[in-house]
């Protein structure tokens, strides 16, 4: 991490997710050989804070840019760091096709169920009945559809090698998430294919709560919809629980 003070809102899970990603790169000693791709969204600030080579991609196109980088420099470790509006809405095509091709990259997907940066609009992962600035009466399944479970979706594709869903709101979950990220970068080293790590996070500003309230709300409401745990390990789907 650089010495810049994080500009995220107080209590935002992005800071913790940044920290564990950079700690993993440091522990593996691959910081100099890593290239990160930050797309648009709150996660765009990643290049200010992550002390590795970073580039920025247009909205949703980070997996496509990462594909190009990893094919140009096959020896480098390439990761993207994306939010849910970016990965699940605007970049769905790029994400699904990169996963289907099984590019040798790591995708870190921070899912907070809302467009955080632009003022709390509804995202594809917004829960049913959740109030956002573009669904002021709560999300209706009839007219707006159901929340997309991206991890389950990409786990069906043959190109993904490791798909997991973690969170970073307590120390136990942070340790598990760190272990998952480490495994993902080790898969890249072994050229196994694409690793997809979903981190369920809070957006206390977007949800209009205090950080601790938002973490409790996340445990009560997000986790039943987005259950934590490994979904695909070593290219094999885990039995649905």
């Amino acid at each position: 991490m650089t010495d810049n003070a994080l500009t995220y809102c107080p209590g935002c899970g992005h800071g913790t997710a940044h920290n564990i990603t950079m700690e993993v790169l440091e522990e593996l000693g691959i910081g100099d050989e890593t290239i990160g791709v930050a797309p648009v969204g709150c996660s765009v600030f990643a290049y200010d804070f992550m002390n590795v080579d970073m580039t920025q991609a247009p909205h949703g196109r980070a997996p496509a840019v990462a594909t190009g980088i990893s094919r140009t420099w096959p020896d480098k470790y390439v990761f993207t760091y994306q939010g849910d509006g970016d990965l699940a809405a605007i970049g769905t095509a790029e994400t699904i096709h990169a996963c289907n091709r099984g590019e040798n990259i790591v995708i870190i997907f921070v899912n907070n169920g809302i467009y955080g940066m632009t003022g709390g609009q509804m995202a594809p992962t917004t829960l049913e009945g959740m109030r956002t600035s573009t669904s002021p009466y709560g999300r209706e399944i009839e007219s707006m559809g159901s929340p997309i479970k991206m991890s389950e979706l990409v786990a069906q594709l043959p190109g993904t090698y490791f798909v997991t869903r973690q969170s970073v709101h307590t120390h136990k979950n942070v340790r598990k998430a760190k272990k998952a990220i480490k495994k993902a970068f080790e898969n890249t080293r072994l050229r196994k294919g694409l690793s997809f790590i979903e981190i369920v996070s809070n957006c206390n500003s977007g949800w209009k709560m205090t950080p601790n309230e938002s973490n409790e709300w996340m445990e009560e409401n997000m986790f039943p919809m987005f259950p934590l745990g490994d979904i695909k390990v070593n290219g094999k789907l885990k039995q649905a629980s």
Partner: protein
Amino acid sequence: MAKVKGAIVVNTEVCKGCEVCIPVCNENAIGMSQNVNRKGYHYAYMSNPEACNGCTNCAIVCPDRAITVYRVKVPTDSHQIQSHG
């Protein structure tokens, strides 16, 4: 088994007062200060210094890397100091 005593040092200018560190502290050693930092946030401080056992849970969950934890083993003669931050 040697008892471990800990102490946390909060970088008060970096702390944003999100209070995420408070529920993860099993010993209730952390509280929020009445004072504010330059940005206007109430920062975390060690309200109960005797209770801290240096588990580093607060440093792990801190999104802003504001907390450094120092640990010392009490009964041994040669005090061994480890840090995590």
